[in-house]
């Protein structure tokens, strides 16, 4: 898996060198700080930095709080179980689709305002306020929270079984603690270390996101990451030095946010010791129970309404403000856009499938090797997370420059390679538990029956792991479909996918067409997950034990 680190290092190097004036391809042969001076003189730079830093931290804090409160509030209840079933599909919706859905929901002429107007507000026209793209980045943060809550929840749900959470809670309850306080005091302290890396990944992502920030984020000035992208794409090639300096700065901002979070962790650790053992058994239990459920229900409801809103907009005919629903429905927008969608759709699928296939081979080979040679779960998991923790904007530009310096122009193959970088870690994370947990005796039985390692792998291990493998591939496909920046940069803008097309339309503003594209974007991962669920059921229709195994 160290293959993943190499392009990362090359990318970072080729961003740092130009940031200090060294870029032979453009004639920069000496080191200087011109780029940094130019960068500092950009109007609104400080605001951009502050926006990225603050939105990253606030988003993570809010999303983590929602997840923690929910888990504390609703263990074992039916809410819990139904939410668990909703988590994966929600997670599969690409960032851009969520962002568009949210934008259409909360915009001044969006669904929410329509539903309460003119009854509650008296508005006969859309109010003239900036809700989406608001200067404080609130809409952006809301969008990020919507996306990160399912991610963190899934990570927690994956980590919880190894903790014996139920026993801990039962024990604490037998000592008189109410259920939610019992969870907070006896499970959370051991759960957090297990989800720390995913939390860091969320911080890194939220401080440097590009596609969501382009759709929901402030515009004057935009977040740092969006500014960097516009400088990099500037026809004036000299701007590339400044873009590189900006990318290095982005790396610093993300690191600063991570450091702040880490300091916060230390403080919480220190000051929570007293609270953990102060013996209070019920204080705040009701508040936790209510807020946990309400917050998560709101999040889920918002996400579902956002997608529902996309459906309505994509079918809307004539729609007068403030009517709650369009007066006519039409398939025109779908019919109008479908012909032009063929190429992006083909690109999306071929990139996604190719990257997923390569990642699956790579990951399975790594896991099989580790299992065969009895290698322990290695510390190298940190390495695996690197492509998720280092901001994309910070090293992807460098990767383009590095590729150009060995005469590889942006093209489809490079896009696939870049996707592989982000897809492989997710595939590994979702498959490794199932792989290691498979009873070693299955393969031992095969060996004792005279079947060698390869045949045992094909005839025993792979069939037994079919369901988790397909799920991991669906996750990987969903991640690939959602990628915006790697597709744009490594494809040099010449490999359009559904995602790049949708984001490109963001400024254009034809909501109905955007809604169609966003829906197609959201639909693809859905199909992937449905297949991952359906195929094992069909294949194992006559094998009872295999159906429960997934």
């Amino acid at each position, binding site marked *: 898996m160290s293959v993943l680190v190499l392009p990362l290092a090359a990318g970072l190097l080729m961003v740092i060198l130009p940031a200090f004036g060294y870029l032979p391809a453009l004639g920069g042969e000496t080191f200087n700080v011109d780029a940094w001076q130019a960068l500092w003189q950009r109007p609104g730079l400080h605001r951009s930095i502050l926006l990225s830093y603050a939105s990253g931290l606030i988003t993570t804090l809010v999303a983590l709080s929602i997840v923690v409160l929910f888990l504390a509030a609703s263990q074992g209840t039916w809410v819990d179980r139904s939410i668990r079933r909703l988590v994966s599909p929600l997670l599969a919706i690409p960032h851009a689709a969520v962002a568009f859905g949210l934008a259409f929901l909360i915009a001044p002429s969006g669904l929410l305002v329509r539903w309460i107007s003119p009854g509650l507000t008296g508005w006969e026209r859309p109010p003239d306020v900036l809700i989406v793209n608001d200067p404080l980045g609130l809409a952006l943060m809301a969008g990020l929270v919507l996306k990160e809550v399912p991610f963190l929840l899934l990570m927690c749900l994956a980590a919880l079984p190894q903790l014996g959470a139920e026993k801990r809670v039962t024990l604490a309850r037998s000592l008189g603690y109410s259920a939610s306080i019992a969870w907070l005091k006896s499970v959370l302290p051991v759960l957090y270390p297990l989800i720390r890396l995913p939390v860091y990944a969320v911080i890194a992502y939220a401080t440097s996101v590009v596609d969501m920030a382009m759709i929901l984020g402030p515009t004057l000035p935009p977040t740092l990451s969006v500014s960097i992208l516009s400088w990099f794409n500037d026809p004036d090639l000299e701007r590339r030095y400044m873009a590189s300096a900006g990318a290095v700065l982005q790396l610093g901002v993300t690191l600063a946010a991570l450091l702040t979070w880490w300091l916060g962790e230390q403080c919480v650790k220190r000051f929570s010791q007293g609270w953990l053992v102060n013996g209070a058994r019920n204080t705040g239990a009701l508040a936790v129970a209510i807020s946990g459920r309400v917050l998560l229900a709101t999040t889920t409801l918002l996400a579902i309404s956002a997608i529902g809103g996309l459906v309505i907009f994509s079918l809307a005919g004539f729609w007068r403000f403030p009517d709650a629903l369009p007066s006519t429905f039409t398939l025109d927008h779908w019919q109008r856009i479908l012909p032009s969608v063929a190429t992006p759709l083909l690109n999306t699928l071929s990139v996604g499938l190719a990257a997923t296939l390569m990642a699956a081979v790579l990951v399975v080979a790594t896991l099989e090797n580790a299992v065969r040679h009895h290698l322990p779960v290695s510390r190298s998991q940190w390495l695996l997370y690197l492509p998720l923790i280092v901001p994309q904007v910070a090293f992807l530009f460098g990767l383009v420059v590095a590729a150009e310096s060995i005469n590889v122009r942006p093209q489809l193959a490079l896009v696939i390679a870049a996707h592989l970088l982000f897809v492989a870690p997710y595939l590994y994370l979702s498959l490794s538990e199932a792989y290691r947990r498979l009873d070693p005796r299955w393969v*031992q039985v095969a*060996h*004792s*029956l005279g079947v*060698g390692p390869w045949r045992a792998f094909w005839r025993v291990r792979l069939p037994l792991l079919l369901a988790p493998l397909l799920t991991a591939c669906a996750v990987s496909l969903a991640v690939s479909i959602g990628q915006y920046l790697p597709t744009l940069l490594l494809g040099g803008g010449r490999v359009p996918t559904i995602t790049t097309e949708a984001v490109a339309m963001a400024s254009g503003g034809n909501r109905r067409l955007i809604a169609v594209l966003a829906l197609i974007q959201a639909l693809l991962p859905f199909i992937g997950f449905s297949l991952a669920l359906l195929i094992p059921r069909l294949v194992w229709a006559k094998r*009872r034990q295999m159906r429960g195994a997934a």
Partner: protein
Amino acid sequence: MTPNLHTLHIKQIAITLAGETLLAMHRDIAPGEVLTVMGPSGSGKSTLLAYLAGFLSPAFQSQGEVYLGDKRLDTLPAEQRGIGLLFQDPMLFPHLSVGGNLRFGLPRRTNDKTQQVAKALEQVGLSGFEARDPATLSGGQQARVALMRLLLSQPRAVLLDEPFSKLDTALRQEMRTLVFGQLRAAGLPALLVTHDEADANAAGGPIIALG
């Protein structure tokens, strides 16, 4: 099954973990004989089986040699040793039918696979069970299929890891008779690991205690 009978020689073996000797053994097991190894949990019984079968984790060090007749086994990979295994659980592959499980055990170049599978099922009173899903079988039926799968693979020695401990008391005696009868009939040297005296008595062979 063509009985080419050999004695299993366990020669001066010693297994150590981090410098500490877990177990040492020097023993021959004749064809058709069942050697019972008894001991409390943690006495290294499963380590012994893992070593003989070829699954010992590299954390352990081992000395000594294992021969079947004059063929050295301990240097071979697990699948070439010809040592069959019966676990506590039947371990029937859940993705294969009953017939598929039995076929899995048959050596690759077998001519009359279908016939052999049918015959094996008939031997344990499960005629016509080929297409069944193993998950629909009772515990005793699964144990019998597992035994026939083992025998069809034509092992030259067999290791038994508390194979009766998860069966009902009533079934247990029946399975003991069946398993030891079949092993004896096939003339296979066998090593049984257990902490149940009744198993040892039913096996009818020599008994050694570990730990």
